[in-house]
């Protein structure tokens, strides 16, 4: 039974890789392979590459100093943080908000089996993230120090232990969010605030990580002695990877025990939490109506959808917060950063302006509300399809929400950047113009790709929000475009000068936006009607 449930869930997660919803048929083997290669490249090459470099940086120094355990401890903590960060947001919704909970609970399936199946899903998702740290960690260690049987077996045990610790953390946090949300009125806002605090802490650690790691490597003896004295458990944890059988056995037993306890806790409380979400009754009081235009109504509806879902806000709207922060940071430190870039790339005038634009565009790519918005219509798709509005208008409202959410922060940050750039007036103007044009392009492209790759049959909204091809393409595609902007300038574009170079990009974004808008109003409208 567990196998059937897990297969069903995984089938949903990877449905868009196997099934072309638009053509209503299975994808070709070539297409499926291409999707998996794309996914593999993102996870292994992009994320894995970053942590491979980090592992190389730390491993040599720490193992030479005889502090192998500290290497495993640090990498293990990073894996736990990354895995928990990657999966904590979907644990709550995967466990308790799945649309098929009622159906499964009505079937003769033990609750513990349903919970176990959900947990397998959470485990696989979190393991996917933490593996990008753990696999480089083990390979680099075995290559540097040598792979004895004890190191390999204990290393693999450490891999399992860390992935289960991530699962335990995700489940505990998911359970806490669920218990809190049952009692609260403004669930979305509270969940978002808690999550933002978590993200804030995560990014604080992330930005301090380099300094922290350098400090630990240079003062490894001191820190090592302190950790060993004050937190012997952490020392033991680090020892597992070095091939310490006793440490491996102690931690494996403790993790197994904790996993069993958490599973029992979740199984026992699952029914009451999953079915006990009724909020306090709100009394209806008639108020004067504010009449809106059809477009206004559709836009308002999109905003309501966005604001109602913490998952949607956190996964597709994080940039709304990060971009203004970036703007303020640029105002404070921009001149310093610009001078550094200009000094590093002395032969490329105004390169700092273009490189800062690259950074800003990358943050803007983190606002991708349009990409999953067609999929999020789900079973309610009949409503916009049966209303007297053009499909083009519905699609434009989806793009407009993203434009609204990203446009204002981008305008603010680009003005801050222009003020701090120390460039000529035409360059300053082009920084703002390019940012605005990119924002518009990004919103229209998100709507386009969302319509091209819809997932309308989902049981958890995480499928379209986090796991859909459309969102992945928008996020990583946005980063690739942003990086191209900076790289091409450093390679060739500087010959044109920053103002002309940014003007070219602005015109390219505007032309692409016009084409996309035209497509949405013509072919897109037809495609939406035929979903």
């Amino acid at each position, binding site marked *: 039974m567990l196998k059937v449930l897990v297969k069903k869930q995984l089938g949903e997660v990877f449905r868009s890789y196997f099934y072309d919803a638009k053509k209503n048929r299975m994808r070709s083997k070539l297409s499926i392979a291409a999707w998996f290669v794309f996914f593999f490249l993102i996870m292994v090459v992009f994320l894995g590459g970053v942590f491979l470099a980090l592992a190389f940086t730390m491993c040599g120094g720490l193992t030479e100093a005889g502090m192998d355990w500290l290497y495993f401890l640090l990498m293990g903590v990073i894996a736990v943080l990354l895995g928990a960060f990657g999966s904590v947001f979907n644990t709550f919704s995967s466990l308790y908000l799945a649309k098929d909970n009622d159906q499964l609970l009505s079937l003769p399936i033990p609750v513990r089996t349903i919970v176990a199946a959900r947990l397998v899903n959470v485990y696989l998702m979190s393991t996917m993230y933490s593996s990008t740290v753990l696999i480089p960690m083990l390979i680099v260690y075995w290559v540097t120090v040598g792979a004895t049987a004890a190191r390999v077996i204990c290393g693999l045990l450490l891999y399992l232990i860390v992935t289960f610790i991530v699962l335990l953390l995700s489940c505990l946090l998911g359970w806490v969010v669920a218990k809190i949300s049952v009692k609260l009125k403004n669930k979305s806002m509270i969940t978002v605030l808690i999550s933002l605090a978590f993200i804030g802490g995560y990014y604080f650690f992330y930005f301090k990580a380099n300094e922290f790691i350098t400090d630990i490597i240079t003062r490894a003896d001191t820190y090592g002695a302190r950790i060993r004295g004050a937190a012997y458990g952490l020392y033991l944890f680090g020892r597992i990877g070095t091939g310490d059988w006793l440490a491996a056995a102690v931690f494996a037993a403790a993790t197994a025990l904790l996993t069993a306890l958490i599973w029992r806790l979740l199984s026992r409380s699952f029914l009451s939490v999953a079915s006990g979400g009724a909020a306090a009754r709100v009394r*209806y009081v008639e108020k004067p109506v504010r009449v809106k235009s*059809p477009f206004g*109504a559709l836009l308002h509806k999109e905003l309501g959808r966005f604001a109602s879902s913490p998952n949607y806000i956190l996964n597709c709207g994080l940039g709304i917060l990060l971009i203004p922060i970036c703007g303020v940071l640029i105002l404070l430190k921009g001149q310093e950063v610009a001078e550094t870039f200009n000094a590093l790339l002395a032969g490329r005038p105004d390169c700092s302006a273009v490189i800062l634009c690259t950074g800003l565009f990358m943050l803007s790519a983190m606002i991708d509300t349009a990409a999953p918005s067609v999929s999020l219509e789900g079973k*309610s798709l009949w409503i916009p399809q049966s*209303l*007297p509005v053009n499909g083009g208008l519905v699609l434009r409202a989806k793009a407009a929400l993203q434009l609204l959410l990203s446009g204002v922060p981008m305008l603010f940050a680009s003005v801050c950047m222009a003020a701090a750039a120390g460039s000529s007036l035409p360059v300053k103007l082009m920084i703002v113009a390019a940012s605005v044009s990119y924002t518009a392009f990004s919103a229209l492209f998100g709507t386009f790709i969302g319509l091209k790759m819809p997932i309308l049959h989902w049981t958890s909204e995480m499928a379209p929000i986090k796991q859909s091809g459309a969102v992945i393409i928008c996020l990583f595609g946005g980063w690739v475009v942003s990086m191209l902007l900076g790289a091409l300038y450093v390679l060739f574009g500087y010959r044109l000068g920053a103002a002309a170079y940014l003007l070219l990009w602005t015109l390219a974004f505007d032309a692409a936006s016009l084409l996309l808008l035209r497509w949405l109003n013509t072919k897109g409208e037809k495609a939406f*009607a035929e979903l």
Partner: protein
Amino acid sequence: MLNIEHLTKRYGEKIAVDDLSLHIYPGEIYGFIGHNGAGKTTTLKCVVGILSFDEGVVTVNGKNIREDPVACKRDLAYIPDNPDLYDFMSGIKYLNFIGDVFGIPADVRQERIRRYADTFELTGDLAQPISAYSHGMKQKLAVIAAWIHDPKLIIMDEPFVGLDPRAAHLLKEMMREHCDAGGAIFFSTHVLEVAEKLCDKVAIIKQGRLVKAGTMEEVKGDDSLEEVFLELEAE
């Protein structure tokens, strides 16, 4: 009001609706019956313009659903068999959303919401999120949303499923009033007793083909609708 001429809809090799023609005039309540998978829902979705079709012509109030879908949709309201509404909205927000899309003035809208919500005893729940509604409450909200813009034609797919006896009775009364005022209703149902008592005309569909259509007397004669239906099914 609604003309369906030679409507054909295929799903790959399978013909879901085969050369179906029907004419519904103002003032008529037209019932649409058939076994599961006969093609009722597909026909209704094609008529409403949320499903494309392969052949035929559908006109609503003289306007072609393919050529001018927005104008057609302005004249009609649709209630699907399973009212999946926007769960993230409250009942009142959903009704106001529909009101905005149809351009209903504020005062008219408020009066109609008050009237229909009171009728279905839903007023007290209008501020609740739709996610907290039962199936029946969602069905009532879908009915109010359909009536709120005073459409000429109302298309309903199994509208009585999930409604309590009182709400079902009220809906039947509203259907009659709507048609007495010059509107038309085309709805599918499995409840043959309701169709027999409520409908002016009825059409029976079997495996995508229309097997019998006309006034209730023409279709059933001296027998009950159930007997006629079962007889046709057995053929």
